């Protein structure tokens, strides 16, 4: 017999069984002394009753000790497994664990207007409704694929579970069956030690069930090893419908830095998950909810198709682009929304360490500024460069906050205050581009920039001949293999000649020392190298990160001091444009999160209140949103998960009284479009060693009850305690309690 306890620490109460014995012993010390004449009759009576007295006293003592012992055992919540001989004594209450598949695929239609999730919820209501709160039945709801796996407490009452069903978010995520099984084993089982009836209601999608391995069976085996239980797997009844699903796999803007007023190309990939060719698929493009393009597509069975649309975002700020398909059996992946920010003209601060005269090109940043803003009438500049003598740099975060990017050109050194302010700005997300030059002091750079993590590599000794008088002794740019996305343009063989612009002098870039004993040094990302005539390479352009900001370090100058790069506009202009565009590009994942996740955003200012509008139209206020202040920006952690797929609008009220609106989107997992299910053999392999039933439970008037109870012996022990207490009371009264041992 395996007797286990739900609250084993309560067994210490069994030590109180010594109490009746102690009371017995103490009582024997409290008596009165009576000199008595008729002792002979007393002794006669005693001799007649001695043996019986002893038995009676012993019986009372045993009953009293048993009362204490049963109370301690009952409070320790004993339970026995199903096969135990004592199982028949266990209580009749039912302990259900309902593992509900709430993944995106459960949104598939199984009947006109009825989804698989609807059918499962209906089944859950029926099943939970048949339970009895008076009997102590308990339900644990586990939702696979939901951001909140436990919508109700473990061991909730039936009414609590029914209420939780009403608040379930729409099915959207990916069902992690293994995580659910481990939740049952690691959290539900310790809290509910008795017999557990586990029911998994799922569409048995291959995505969730095919690769669980033996861990699934092991988790359930561990669950049922203590306390026992049953496992039933109920596939969703699909009324024999074969799924027909075409889903949107992806949606992206091809331009890394969307600009307001400029044409943008949006691309989407759709996939036919069915083995049949669907009827004509109508695809629609929507811009901020307004249809802007319609396409009619044809997909082969199990085939994919990439679709593009060129649109224009007229106003800067947040926008939503949606791509929708004709409705089919799985509405979830019939649409996908992309949230993006259309930028105006990015402001770039050029900090010049070698200001020249009236001729802008005499400045170290002159060619750079010209490349960013050619100053050609009729041709709008794509950037707004602002040149500032390093001597006029205030060294405040507020100054840097006015710019979208910062470039240092041949800056000898920054003061500690300037370096600190720059580091805070970069940490908060402001990208930094560093050009070296003759004025750069490596020691000061190491002391003030490198020490603050601003340098991806150390600035080493000067190489080459700055005068360029050596003639042939120069290097050129070379791209690594594979070429970085930022410089993909130059990977085109037709443009490779552009990289032949000579570079006469450069600084050797040295890997940073390891930050601590045994710690691995940060490895910078190499975007380009210098290569000499002999093929020797040295890093020319490297990328690092500080906080949320990216840092690019160029080993040569932005001016013509050390290279002729600026004098090759065919190279120079696209090069700096690509570099800055890359630095300024938004991270799409910041505003586009998987369904069920909570976005973490970097916003300008300090939000005091927020309001989130869901795709369904529901509005959720967020009072005092939590965030980390990073300079003039705030890293905002939104506490509300985006449970619905589609477009969201986040309205922020800032501390300075202004308001800002951000576009967000929640995107379903495209893999949920694969509605194929696993077969019985896969289930059997995954659950090897664990007895289970596959199929729906027969409808009954009451809950099915296997032989024996839920394994809990607490009730039986309490009844036994009551019987002992009654027996003790009656016996003591009959015998004339309190009894005493006889000397």
């Amino acid at each position, binding site marked *: 017999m395996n007797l286990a306890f739900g609250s084993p620490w309560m067994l210490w109460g069994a030590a109180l069984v010594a109490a009746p014995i102690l009371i017995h012993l103490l*009582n*024997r010390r*409290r*008596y*009165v*002394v*009576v*000199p*008595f*004449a*008729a*002792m*002979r*009759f*007393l*002794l*006669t*009576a*005693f001799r*007649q*009753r001695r043996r019986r*007295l002893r038995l*009676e006293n012993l019986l009372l003592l045993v009953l009293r000790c048993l009362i204490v012992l049963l109370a301690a055992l009952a409070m320790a919540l004993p339970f026995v497994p199903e096969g135990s001989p004592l199982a028949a004594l266990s209580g009749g209450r039912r302990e259900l664990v309902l593992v509900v598949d709430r993944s995106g695929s459960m949104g598939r239609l199984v009947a006109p207007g009825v989804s698989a999730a609807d059918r499962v919820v209906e089944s859950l209501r029926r099943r939970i409704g048949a339970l009895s709160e008076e009997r102590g039945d308990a339900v644990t709801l586990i939702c696979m694929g939901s951001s909140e796996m436990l919508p109700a407490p473990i061991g909730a009452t039936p009414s609590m579970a029914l209420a939780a069903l009403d608040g379930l978010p729409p099915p959207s995520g990916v069902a992690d069956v293994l995580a659910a099984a481990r939740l049952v084993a690691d959290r539900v089982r310790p809290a509910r030690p008795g017999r557990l009836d586990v029911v998994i209601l799922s569409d048995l999608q291959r995505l969730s069930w095919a690769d669980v391995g033996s861990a699934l069976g092991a988790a359930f085996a561990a669950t049922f090893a203590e306390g026992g239980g049953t496992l039933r797997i109920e596939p969703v009844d699909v009324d024999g419908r074969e799924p027909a699903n075409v889903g949107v796999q992806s949606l992206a803007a091809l331009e890394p830095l969307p600009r307001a007023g400029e044409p943008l190309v949006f691309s989407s990939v759709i996939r036919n998950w069915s083995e049949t060719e669907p009827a004509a698929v109508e695809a629609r493009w929507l811009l901020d909810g307004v249809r802007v393009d319609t396409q009619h597509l044809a997909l082969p069975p199990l085939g994919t198709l990439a679709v593009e649309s060129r649109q224009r975002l007229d106003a800067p700020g947040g926008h939503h682009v949606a791509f929708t398909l004709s409705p089919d059996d799985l509405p979830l992946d019939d649409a996908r929304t992309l949230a993006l920010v259309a930028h105006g003209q990015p402001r770039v601060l050029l900090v010049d360490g070698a200001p020249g005269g009236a001729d802008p090109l005499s400045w170290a940043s002159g060619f750079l500024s010209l490349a960013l803003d050619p100053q050609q009438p009729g041709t709008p500049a794509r950037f707004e460069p602002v040149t500032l003598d390093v001597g006029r740099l205030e060294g405040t975060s507020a100054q840097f906050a006015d710019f979208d990017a910062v470039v240092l050109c041949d800056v000898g050194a920054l003061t500690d205050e300037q370096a600190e302010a720059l580091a805070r700005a970069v940490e908060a997300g402001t990208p930094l581009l560093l050009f070296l030059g003759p004025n750069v002091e490596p020691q000061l750079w190491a002391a003030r920039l490198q020490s603050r993590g601003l340098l991806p590599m150390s600035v080493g000794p000067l190489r080459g001949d700055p005068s360029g008088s050596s003639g042939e002794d120069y290097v050129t740019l070379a791209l690594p293999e594979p070429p970085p996305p930022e410089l993909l343009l130059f990977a085109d063989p037709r443009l490779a000649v552009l990289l032949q612009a000579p570079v006469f002098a450069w600084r050797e870039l040295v890997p940073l020392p390891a930050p601590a004993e045994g710690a691995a040094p940060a490895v910078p990302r190499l975007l380009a190298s210098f290569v000499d005539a002999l093929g020797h390479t040295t890093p020319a352009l490297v990328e690092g990160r500080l906080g949320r900001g990216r840092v690019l370090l160029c080993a040569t100058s932005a001016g013509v001091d050390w290279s002729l790069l600026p004098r090759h506009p065919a190279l120079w202009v696209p090069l700096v444009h690509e570099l800055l565009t890359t630095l300024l590009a938004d991270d799409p994942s910041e505003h586009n999160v998987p369904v069920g996740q909570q976005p973490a955003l970097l916003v300008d200012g300090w939000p005091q209140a927020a309001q989130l509008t869901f795709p369904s139209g529901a509005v959720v206020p967020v009072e005092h949103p939590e965030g980390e202040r990073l300079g003039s920006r705030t890293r905002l952690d939104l506490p509300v998960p985006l449970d619905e797929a589609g477009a969201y609008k986040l309205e922020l009220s800032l501390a300075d009284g202004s308001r800002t609106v951000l576009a967000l989107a929640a995107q379903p997992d495209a893999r949920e479009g694969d509605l194929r299910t696993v077969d019985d053999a896969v289930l059997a392999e995954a659950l090897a060693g664990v007895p289970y039933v596959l199929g729906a439970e027969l409808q009954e008037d009451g809950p099915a009850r296997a032989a024996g109870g839920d394994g809990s012996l607490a009730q039986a022990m309490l009844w036994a305690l009551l019987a002992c207490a009654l027996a003790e009371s009656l016996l003591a009264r009959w*015998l*004339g309690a*309190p*009894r*005493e041992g*006889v*000397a």
Partner: protein
Amino acid sequence: MADSPRSPGAERRAVVLDPKVAERLQHLTLTASRAVEGFLAGRHKSPHRGVSVEFVERRGYVPGDDLRHLDWKAYARTDRLAIKRYEEETNLECTLVVDASASMGYPTDGRPTKYDHASQAAAALAHLVLLERDGAALALFDHQLDRVLPASTSPAHLQPVLLALAEREPAGTTDLSAVLGRLVERIPRPGIVVVVSDLLGEVETLAAGLARLRARNHDVIVLHVLHGDELRFPFDRLTRFEGLEEPQRLLVDPRTLREDYLGALTEWRAQVRRACTVRGVDYHVLDTSAPLDVALSAWLGARMARLSRRG
């Protein structure tokens, strides 16, 4: 006779005849139930018949007196009944044998003891006997005769009796057989022997002693003194009982033994009664919780009525 609480070990106070008892008994006599011999002329039957006697005096008639000796002339004259006393009329000698063993010292918590009660009874009877100008003797005993006062008819003899009773503290073990046997030797002529005791000993020894007394033609009366606690056993707390005469101890919840104790006591009392009655001994129980005057008067009245029926 007043009962005064007495702490164990303290000096015993004087035994005084309770006026209430005396008043109650004044119209009663301790009549011998059979022919006895006495050295003074009295109302008791003389075993000697046909002997010439001289008129000595008259005394008031009490129920039970022989009507043959009724002085009719005095009645005609005075309208009062009177009995003629003759020279040869025999006087009663009553020996009061009082148990002064340790068991008679129960209870020891200051309440009146069985010995107090026995003393009261003995004093009352002594007073009664002396009132009738009969002889009263006293014998105190434990395992042997301890103090003996020979019989005297003098009314002043009551004081020595009371003093002897008062001076004695209950102590020692009980040996009834030896005591009664010794008593037989000391009482030359048949008389009344009143044994006032709790009789806590073997019934066989009591029976043997009584038999010896009866063999000498004594009129034996047994006043069985028992305390209310012994009769009803009211104890309800865990108690360690300690023997008063024997070194015995018993720690027990009295409620567990009450039924059996009372059963044993009742059976023993029945045996004692049987032992007395089969030997023609007048047996009466004196419950210390009952007023002595009531108990004695009731007993004496019943005794007199019984004897008068016998003629």
